[in-house]
């Protein structure tokens, strides 16, 4: 059997079954109508594409850099201010020797004591009977 006879026989294999073409066209038409709707100029923004991924990578790199650059030039935004000369939240700060800590007392709080009530009970606090520690940073806890 020569090549042309073989080819002729091969061409007769794998025929399309009756109705197959129309079924395939129905399925394809549905797909194409979806494709037509989604392929607007900006569809790459909201559909996962390589282009979108590249853009996201660039954005994720640039946004922190630009944010840092801009933030460095802006005044920090304060959530609360205290001014001793005007009504509002007053704060007084002092160093407590017995607590060995810098205490910030906000106006409106219960009167402060010089006992370190905020410390964990198990924490050993240097008592007054102990030998005084060498002077370090007074603001350090």
């Amino acid at each position, binding site marked *: *059997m020569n*090549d042309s006879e*073989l*080819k002729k*026989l*091969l*061409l*007769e*294999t*794998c*025929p*399309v*079954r009756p109705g*197959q*073409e129309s079924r*395939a*066209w129905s*399925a*394809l*038409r549905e*797909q*194409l109508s979806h*494709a*037509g709707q989604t*392929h607007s100029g900006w569809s790459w923004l909201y559909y996962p594409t390589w282009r979108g991924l590249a853009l996201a990578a660039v954005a994720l790199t640039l946004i922190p850099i630009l944010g840092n650059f801009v933030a460095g030039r802006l005044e920090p935004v304060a959530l609360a201010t205290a001014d001793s000369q005007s009504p509002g939240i007053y704060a007084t700060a002092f160093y407590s020797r017995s607590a060995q800590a810098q205490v910030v007392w906000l106006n409106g709080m219960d009167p402060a004591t010089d006992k370190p009530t905020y410390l964990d009970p198990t924490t050993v606090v240097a008592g007054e009977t102990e030998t005084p520690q060498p002077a370090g940073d007074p603001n350090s806890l």
Partner: protein
Amino acid sequence: MVDTSPDYLQRLRSGEETAWGDLHRDHYPRLWSSVQRILNNPTMADDVVQEAFIKAHRDIRRFEGHSQLGTWLYRIAINQALDTIRKKQRTDRWLSFLSPLADDENQPAMPEGSVAPTVSTGLENRELRETIFEAMGELSVEHRAVVQLRLVDEMSLEETAQFLRCRPGTVNSRLHYACEHLRRKLAKQKKATGSET
């Protein structure tokens, strides 16, 4: 044939449904049969041909009309089929690595009506076609692809090698092996038929 007339192309580019319907009707049977001969899996062939049309729909603006529209579409479908095979082979390698039994599930399917009906030809030809279909199924997908591209489509040696990403010598040796296999099976079938009668 309205294949690459500017008017027809314009209708395709504008996404006109009737134009795409005509294209599908004209080219689907040949594309599906060719892809099925390579894949030997009708479900995969359905998917591949559909994907090829979707790609064509997406890329029709890039088609400049240097070749026939059918040829362009055929290339998309064959490339899609070969890509599908490569992906499947990669997946199969992983599956066989994970579970050696998975190989048994990937045997090629033998669809009903896989050979043409015998309306115009005799019983002997039908048997020959069934034999050749079965013999094609026994070949590896690389061999089937060579048979389809080189023997059936009569692509050049270089073009076939380029399509299949192998050397021209490999194409020749695969074609020789595949044709010998098909001839041997056909001869065996003829001999069996002759001994029966």
